[in-house]
């Protein structure tokens, strides 16, 4: 008798334990699983860390409000460590093991190029946070790929426009030997003629180089009126320092890869007077209230600082915009990946941190050169100059 009661009780308990989790899950509240691949560790961790944080911040907010149409967001984020092979493996994991609905990232151009091959084949929407124009073009071959970061093409246009306005017609370019730097070099060379700019010298430096004074000394010997440096990480900050140390008074124009507080910290006194294109987040307090991006930037900056106790960065902004755009698409399209893609493609007048997005079938970036403003570093702060 006692054994039978015990057996019945035990079976009931097991049944409750097994069925209970299932009870809460009607098809109505099954979570939307979104994947993320970022360079969270590695030399580009200043990109991946804020990107991951921003994605998590948006998801937390959405879930606190009850999810999208009742569906909570579930994020699965992997670290590719800046390595192309790892990025590929992470993408495969997200698609096959986690069955992600869409993927945000990666942070870098070479990792993005490798991941998009896989996501295109699997027909899964990818929103990259990397710079190169070739990530979303040619448009016919990138139907499932979008990106939120401004392209290097736009950055170069903006810089050359500024040069034209300032009467600078002869420049020297100093680019990094990484994917970002090479892409920048290509754009700088190919767009120069259109703006009446003559490139008098093309120098290269490595990602880990610590002394660029030979290249700058060579540049000093030319008739260049300005130096344009294209790179990310600590090396461009060393270029700024070396320039000052050599006593060169030429204006230094950096790429948008230098638009971060870390650059100002590393370049020290060399940062003073450096000019670069930046997203509006860098100077949002100086924007007029009528600017549609001001409110978004302010909200992002304040929320990020409060949540993570660290300064906001435009790199994190790429992921912030990507996640919010994706949320909009998910609300419209639900689980259907083809519909999500269509919804993303139809994004119009979306005011993000990185710019105002207007996607179209031919343009999966949706930004124009106006997404950039020219800023100058004065007294250790970014100041809007154009």
């Amino acid at each position, binding site marked *: 008798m006692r054994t039978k009661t015990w057996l019945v009780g035990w079976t009931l308990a097991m049944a409750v334990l097994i069925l209970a989790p299932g009870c809460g899950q009607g098809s109505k509240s099954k979570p939307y699983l979104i994947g993320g691949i970022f360079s969270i*560790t*590695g*030399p580009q*961790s*200043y990109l991946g860390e804020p990107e991951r944080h921003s994605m998590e911040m948006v998801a937390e907010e959405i879930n606190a409000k009850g999810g999208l149409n009742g569906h909570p967001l579930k994020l699965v984020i992997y670290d590719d460590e800046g390595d192309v092979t790892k990025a590929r493996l992470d993408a495969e994991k997200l698609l096959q093991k986690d069955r992600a609905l869409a993927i945000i990232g990666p942070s870098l151009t070479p990792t993005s190029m490798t991941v998009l091959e896989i996501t295109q084949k699997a027909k899964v929407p990818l929103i990259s946070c990397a710079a190169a124009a070739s990530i979303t073009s040619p448009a016919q071959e990138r139907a499932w790929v979008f990106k939120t970061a401004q392209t290097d093409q736009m950055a170069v246009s903006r810089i050359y426009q500024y040069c034209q306005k300032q009467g600078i017609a002869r420049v020297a370019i100093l680019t990094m*030997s990484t994917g970002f730097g090479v892409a920048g070099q290509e754009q700088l060379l190919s767009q120069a003629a259109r703006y009446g700019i003559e490139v008098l010298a093309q*120098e*290269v*430096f*490595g990602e*880990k*180089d*610590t*002394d*660029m*004074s*030979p*290249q700058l*000394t*060579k540049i*000093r*010997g030319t008739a260049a009126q300005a130096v344009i440096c294209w790179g990310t990480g*600590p090396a461009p*900050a*060393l270029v700024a320092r070396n320039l*000052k*140390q*050599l*006593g060169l008074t030429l204006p230094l124009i950096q790429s948008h890869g230098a638009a971060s507080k*870390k650059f100002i*910290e*590393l370049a*020290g*006194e060399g940062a003073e007077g450096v000019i670069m294109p930046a997203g509006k987040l860098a100077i949002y307090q100086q924007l007029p209230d009528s600017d549609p991006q001001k409110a978004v930037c302010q909200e992002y900056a304040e929320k990020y600082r409060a949540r993570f106790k660290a300064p906001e960065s435009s790199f994190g902004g790429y992921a912030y915009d990507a996640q919010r755009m994706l949320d909009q698409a998910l609300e419209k399209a639900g689980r259907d990946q083809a519909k999500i893609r269509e919804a993303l493609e139809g994004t119009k007048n979306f005011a993000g941190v990185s710019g105002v997005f207007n996607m179209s079938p031919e343009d999966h970036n949706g930004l124009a050169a106006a997404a950039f403003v020219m800023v100058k570093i004065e007294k250790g702060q970014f100041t809007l100059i154009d």
Partner: protein
Amino acid sequence: MPILAPLLQYFISGLTNGAIYALIALGFGIIFNTTTIINFAQGEFVMLGAMCAISIYHLAPSLPLAFLGGVIIVSLVGLAFERLALRPVVAASPLTLIIITVGAGVFLKGVAMLLWGKESYTLPPFSGEAPLHLGTATILPQNLWVLGLTLVLVLALEAFFRLTLMGKAMRACAYNLRAARLVGIAASRMVQLSFALSALLGAGAGILIAPLTLGVYDMGTMLGLKGFAAAIIGGLGSLLGGVLGGLLLGLAESFTSGLISSGYRDAVAFLLLLVVLFLRPRGLLGGRQ
């Protein structure tokens, strides 16, 4: 003359880097002299010196304190390394010991990554950033510090080896280890001392160069390899050889980078190394074999 104008700049930059390579090369030479092994963790001593000085400076903004602190801490690390990693296996073959130093180098780099992360850090220059003008070239106060302190250290080292009893004992070990033992020189103490000295020189090099090149956890690898190349070029084990090799390497790098192409900068060290090994394996000044 427009061609000559940048040459002075390349010369200054090359001399500065050369001095750093010289200090690292001396570190290799000293350990080689007393133990016949190459300490491939030497580059990491350089890195640790820089990083420790940076951390000390962040806690107490005093450059002399940071310099001394960094040098002392790394010397202790060098001693600990010798005692813990090498002394227990002193009877092993030189090849095994060399591999152990490689492993220790990787370990130290990993510890540095955990302690300081992968970011770069700055150390303020010792006496300001205002460049001094020398014709069309500029020289920074920090360059002068590097050259000056290197000279002081090398002279101090020379005085140590020639004039003090302990220095002479170390030289005796370098000439003939067995004979030195037979006359009562405690070889194990000499080995300890050589590690402390090498670590000291490495740390000094790291702290001197950090204001110019930033401190980061993986700066030691390339510096160590180039310092090793400099040591071989000049003649492993010879004091003057180490200095000569270092300066030569620094200048060759700088001129190649400036006159030919900056992409070849890192290749110069290894190219020179190969040339020397093919043509004159004992090094330019023929150190101990």
